[in-house]
């Protein structure tokens, strides 16, 4: 997740991400998840940023702005409420078999106060048949046709690219698009102002030459 500038005035210091299989399945180690996938587009992953009483705080896990007394935590909670303790890739893959869009939900909390806000993935980020195809191709490859494998690979690549390139407000619910400050139209103003000045000079010249002629 890049620069999730949430407007919530949450005291976000220690982070607890609760999801079945967070973004790790979708984002970074692309080749590890999808052999033969095309290279990802150019991207820059920056830390989650929240507004803490108007001050931007980066959630980096170890960076400035974190509470020093409370170490950040990362938890994966199953939809049934069970916390995942075995965080090995093998186990995470097994429990991700029945993943759906509901698994892409993140709670960012400040441990000291218990304040949280929820970040939910928008519908449409994943294609409709993505999870069904994923289950078939990844967990039952013998019964998947070559067309299904190709389709899943393509959808997987598209989804990965969305995560890497789309702004947060297009990926997540509740993230407001920052308002762009309009550039002042200096050039247009300068042209008009120049015309005004030239017009004034011409007018003065006209008046002066008229007086002189008399």
């Amino acid at each position, binding site marked *: 997740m890049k620069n999730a500038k949430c407007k919530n005035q949450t005291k976000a210091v220690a982070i607890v991400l609760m999801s079945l299989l967070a973004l790790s399945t979708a984002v970074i180690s692309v080749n590890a998840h999808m052999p033969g996938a095309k290279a990802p587009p150019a991207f820059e992953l920056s830390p989650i940023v929240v507004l803490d009483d108007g001050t931007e705080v980066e959630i980096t896990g170890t960076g400035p702005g974190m509470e020093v007394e409370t170490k950040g935590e990362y938890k994966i909670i199953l939809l049934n409420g069970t916390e995942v303790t075995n965080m090995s890739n093998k186990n995470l893959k097994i429990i991700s078999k029945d993943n759906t869009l509901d698994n892409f939900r993140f709670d960012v909390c400040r441990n000291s106060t218990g304040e949280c806000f929820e970040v939910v993935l928008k519908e449409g980020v994943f294609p409709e048949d993505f999870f069904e195809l994923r289950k078939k191709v990844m967990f039952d490859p013998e019964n998947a046709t070559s067309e299904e494998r190709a389709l899943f690979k393509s959808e997987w690549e598209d989804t990965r690219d969305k995560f890497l390139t789309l702004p947060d407000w297009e990926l997540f619910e509740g993230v407001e698009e920052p308002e762009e400050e309009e550039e002042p*139209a200096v050039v*247009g*103003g300068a042209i008009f102002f120049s015309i005004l000045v030239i017009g004034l000079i011409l007018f003065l010249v006209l008046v002066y030459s008229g007086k002189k002629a008399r």
Partner: protein
Amino acid sequence: MNENEKKFGQIYFAVLGAVALAFGAAELIASAGEGFTWGILDSSGASDPMFLPWKAIILLSASLFYLSSVKNFAEVHQIAKAVMASIMIWIVAGMAIWARIASSIPGEETWFNSLEGFLASYAPPYCPEVFLLPFSLVIVYYILKEGET
């Protein structure tokens, strides 16, 4: 005033009158609603909504003066109508320009505006009268011509 000048004046002020009529009608319609901004043309009345219908009436009157001056344009009374129409446009456009000049000098939170802010305050969109202003100045030529005779 020779025949060519008379012919040019007739065509020119007929076109200017028609344009002024279109602008006036547009402003009148705009003043009935919430106004409009179309590209660099501004009839939103954002700066002074109360004045928008008045500007529309002034423009319509100016257009009528222009159009009525076209017939027998070389005659002094007819030129006087075009002069009057031009003066009406100058007054309204002058007010609009003066409003820009006055608002361009002070800053939002400071005594004086920055150079960027100063120039930006002259940026488009402009009201229709400002567009008509340079074209209405042609009447000065005919005034000078009339003065020679």
